[in-house]
């Protein structure tokens, strides 16, 4: 019997849903193959989250608490993860593919001389390792990949698996951690929080995404209004983040975030493959674009060919009506 | 490097520009080949059959290469007349065409141009100027620098580069040709055609079975009649490695007057019962459209040279479309070679003025290019005459229908059948006119 360890990511005082998705999947794999599903929480107050993790089937939960984890810094995190791996000796160590994960995954693999597959959309156990599917070529294509090693790191795209509740009375093991600040070569000087929208796009049920077509103030207002009505998170194409009109953390696509909401409304977005790479897995896609030949219409369930300044006002009104 | 002057700057890395560049490199000239596309061929949607054997001059034994830039060699040709239901083809296939150097190879330009550019790079590396001759892509030439009506270099953005001569090989959309004053700004629409093309992919075995291809042998098929839905022009179908190129060349003016879109006409062509059978089961992987010159001499530039400048390829409107084939690439290739040879000559004489450069015109006139362009003008005009893309095909197909259908009644003599078809589709007089025209022109 070997161990499938899942990292539980915490951001803004909440467990990231995507890491519970990963845990749910690992639990499944563990049950099907007679392995153990375990989880690890590394945070300034890790123990706060234990109970929630218990209800997703972890049989053992490691916690590691230290003030230094308040903010993301790769040096202490690496040290922490290395310690966890020695402690738990997982065959598979699974992560949600967040920016924080991306920051350390390669380094951790190098440090532990472990095999690693990043950003997979699904993975399974095979003997001596894991098999996985990875979107490649700007997510136009899926590659089938295998990793063979006794220790394998894997990071999973958000929305790849459903949450499966599964109450367990997990054993909780605290791994103590000490970090001497003087080891820090890199210094965190400042954190610029995402202005405005706090809804975590990778978890949002509904996303209203704006593109170059909606770059002026009036466009922005309409976007905000629509998002309010739907209680949606606001996303953007590169055209707007690049122009500094929208916060970079809102960019959706190959460079930006990968999202998979129930409803994605693309407004004034052409649908370049690099953007589509980040939102093609949305359940329902609505596109509003004045160019009938815009590629976005090829993937939209509901395509509205028209000027967003003319279409949005009545659209917002209609949705208001439906809402109440 | 600001003050370095080249023997020659070539504008445009299409067939003509690449042929010129290869010739200059082989003759140890110091030159610059400039292409606005991201790479040679990037902007070249066209492609089809490169006729003739000049390619073998530029790249000896190219056919021996593993993955050369060409698709297939032509040993099977077909000219097809269509009405709404039927096709009547003149079909010629011969193993004689299997021998190298081939007399025609099908190319896809994005691949072919890139491959040929690679060959030019090799030639540069072996020349006397491995470090001083260049192919520069993703650079657009904005202006030909003229000093008292002599070309002395080019300008791109803020940068200027000087050369003793400039070869303009910019293709059909010849803005620079006009800038240097070799062509009037206005070219009437009735002398311009538009070519559209779809690439359809098959499983390679399936393709080879369907078109009876053997190894790298290929087929070219031209179409006259229904294909163009009553618009002046013709259709074509070429076999590539595992795709076919199918498309049309259509008169712009006629399109406008008949208010038809090339794309619709292409679908009309593809929906013909016979064509449907021919192309079924493939997947369209590419669609492109591009202007083609009519090959009408009346729109050729006034001259092909002037102090420090030579024009070649389609920039000089060197193209022939006389029904049985489109010849643009081979004309481009030959004219590129001749232009470059003239520059080599000019360097020896150290005289880049018209008095030397005019020998380019002479060489071109003596080559098959101008001989054909002069000789087949009537054919060109005839191809653009309504009878040719309407009455004649209908008539021929109707005759075919009568001739090949076996009914349980006394069979008529074919002469009689012909007579009937002619009555239905045109008067004897028209036919005689076309007959005479045709006889004279082809």
């Amino acid at each position, binding site marked *: 019997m070997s161990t499938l360890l899942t990292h539980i990511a915490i*951001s803004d005082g909440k467990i990231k849903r995507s890491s519970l998705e990963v845990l749910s999947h690992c639990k499944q794999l563990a049950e099907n193959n007679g392995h153990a599903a375990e989880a690890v929480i590394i945070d300034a107050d890790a123990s706060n989250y234990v109970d929630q993790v218990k209800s997703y089937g972890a049989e053992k939960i490691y916690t590691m608490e230290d003030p230094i984890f308040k903010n993301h810094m790769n040096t202490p995190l*690496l040290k922490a993860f290395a310690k966890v791996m020695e402690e738990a000796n997982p065959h598979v160590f699974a992560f949600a593919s*967040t920016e924080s994960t991306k920051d350390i995954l*390669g380094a951790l693999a190098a440090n532990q001389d472990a095999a690693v597959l990043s950003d997979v959309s699904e993975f399974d156990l095979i003997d001596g390792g894991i098999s996985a599917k990875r979107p490649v070529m700007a997510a136009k294509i899926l590659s089938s990949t295998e990793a063979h090693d006794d220790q394998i790191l894997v990071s999973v795209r958000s929305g790849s698996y459903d949450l499966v509740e599964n109450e367990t009375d997990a054993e909780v093991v605290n791994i103590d951690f000490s970090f001497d600040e003087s080891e820090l070569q890199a210094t965190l000087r400042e954190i610029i929080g995402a202005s405005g929208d706090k809804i975590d796009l990778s978890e949002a049920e509904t996303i209203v995404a704006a593109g170059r077509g909606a770059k002026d103030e009036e466009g922005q207002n309409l976007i905000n209004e629509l998002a309010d009505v739907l209680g949606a998170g606001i996303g953007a194409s590169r055209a707007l983040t690049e122009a500094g009109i929208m916060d970079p953390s809102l960019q959706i696509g190959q460079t930006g975030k990968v999202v998979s909401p129930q409803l994605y409304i693309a407004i004034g977005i052409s649908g370049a493959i690099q953007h589509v790479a980040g939102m093609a897995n949305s*359940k329902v896609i609505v596109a509003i674009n004045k160019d009938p030949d815009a590629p976005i219409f090829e993937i939209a369930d509901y395509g509205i060919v028209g000027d967003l300044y003319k*279409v949005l006002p009545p*659209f917002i009104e209609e949705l208001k009506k*439906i809402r109440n | 490097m600001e003050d370095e002057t080249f023997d020659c700057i070539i504008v445009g890395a299409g067939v003509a520009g690449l042929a010129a560049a290869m010739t200059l490199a082989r003759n140890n000239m110091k030159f610059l080949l400039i292409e606005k596309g991201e790479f040679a061929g990037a902007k070249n949607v066209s492609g089809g059959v490169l006729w003739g054997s000049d390619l073998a001059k530029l790249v000896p034994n190219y056919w021996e290469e593993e993955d050369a830039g060409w698709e297939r060699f032509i040993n099977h040709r077909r000219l097809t007349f269509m009405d709404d239901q039927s096709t009547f083809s003149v079909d010629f296939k011969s193993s004689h065409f299997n021998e190298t150097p081939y007399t025609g190879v099908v190319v896809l330009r994005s691949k072919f141009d890139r491959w040929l550019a690679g060959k030019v790079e090799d030639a540069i590396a072996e020349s006397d100027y491995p470090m001083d001759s*260049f192919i520069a892509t993703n650079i657009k030439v904005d202006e030909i620098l003229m000093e008292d009506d002599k070309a002395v270099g080019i300008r791109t953005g803020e940068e200027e580069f000087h050369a003793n001569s400039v070869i303009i090989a910019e293709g059909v959309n010849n803005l620079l040709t006009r800038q240097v004053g070799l062509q009037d700004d206005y070219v009437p629409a009735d002398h311009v055609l538009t070519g559209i093309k779809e690439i359809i992919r098959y499983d390679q075995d399936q393709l080879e079975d369907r078109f009876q291809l053997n190894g790298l042998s290929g087929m070219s098929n031209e179409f006259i009649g229904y294909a163009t839905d009553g618009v002046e022009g013709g259709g074509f179908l070429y076999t590539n490695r595992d795709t076919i190129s199918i498309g049309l060349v259509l008169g712009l003016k006629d399109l406008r007057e008949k208010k038809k879109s090339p794309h619709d006409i292409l679908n009309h062509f593809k929906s013909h019962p016979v064509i449907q059978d021919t192309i079924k089961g493939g997947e369209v992987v590419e669609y492109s459209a591009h202007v083609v010159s009519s090959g009408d001499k009346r729109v050729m530039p006034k001259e092909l040279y002037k102090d420090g400048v030579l024009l070649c390829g389609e920039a000089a409107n060197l193209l022939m479309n006389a029904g049985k084939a489109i010849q643009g690439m081979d004309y481009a290739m030959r004219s590129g070679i001749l232009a470059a040879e003239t520059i080599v000559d000019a360097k020896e004489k150290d005289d880049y003025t018209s008095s030397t450069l005019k020998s380019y015109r002479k060489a071109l006139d003596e080559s098959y290019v101008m001989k054909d362009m002069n000789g087949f003008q009537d054919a060109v005009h005839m191809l653009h005459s309504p009878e040719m893309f309407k009455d004649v095909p209908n008539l021929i197909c109707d005759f075919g229908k009568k001739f090949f259908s076996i009914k349980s009644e006394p069979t008529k003599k074919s002469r009689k059948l012909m007579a009937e078809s002619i009555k239905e589709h045109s008067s004897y007089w028209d036919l005689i006119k076309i007959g005479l025209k045709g006889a004279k022109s082809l």
Partner: protein
Amino acid sequence: MKFYVCIKQVPDVNAPIQIKEGQLIQDTNRMILNAYDASAVEEALVLKEAHGGEVEVVSVGPDKVTETIRKALAMGADKAVHIQTSGDAEYDSATYATILAKFFEDKEYDVISCGKQSQDTDAGLAGSMLAEKLNLPYATNAVGLEMDSDKLVVKRQGDSGQEIIGLPSPCLVTCSNDMNDPRIPSLKGIMQSKRKPMETIELSSLGIDESELSPKTKVTGYQEKPGREPGQKFEGEPEEMAQQVAKLLDEEANVI
């Protein structure tokens, strides 16, 4: 300031792709400079122009990568190293990181910059792997770089916001293409690139036996991404369309 920029040649995702027997076929076999690396080169050039120094690019791959290296030189990099592989095998990030680490072992530099990921595989691993192997402080997903006395100040895109991080040299940073718009080489740049020094290094001279490189991960095949069902498209009066679609979202898709 001595910059090393690791650049990778990748297939152009915009070129027609086809899958035959599970293998990827690039119709025109078009290869380009990884967009993220282009941003890394651009930023290194900007800092060099401001603070002086030298920008050297390094690429591991078969001979055809020299085409891509020339592109970086044409942009303005001063010199280049081509670490030669046979090109017979496709390697994973870890393998490239191993090769690069060997190369950097005995080199002097202030900053190594990488792209944050390869445009074709989106792996995003080699950068931090290299940092770990060389034991360098590093930051990934940089959207801005500045010099502040002896420190490299990195603005990186985190999950919810941006972090400003100070790195002492030597250090490693991986760059996002959100950092800048890479310059398009000028004709002069292209001409100069040909005359700039490009050193070719064989793996053996780094003490690496290519036949013994055995990646822990391998791609076993490719498949088309299952496409979405074609949806409904509306053209006409804004009010009507708005009404129709809102209704459908509510009653058909029920996502409101």
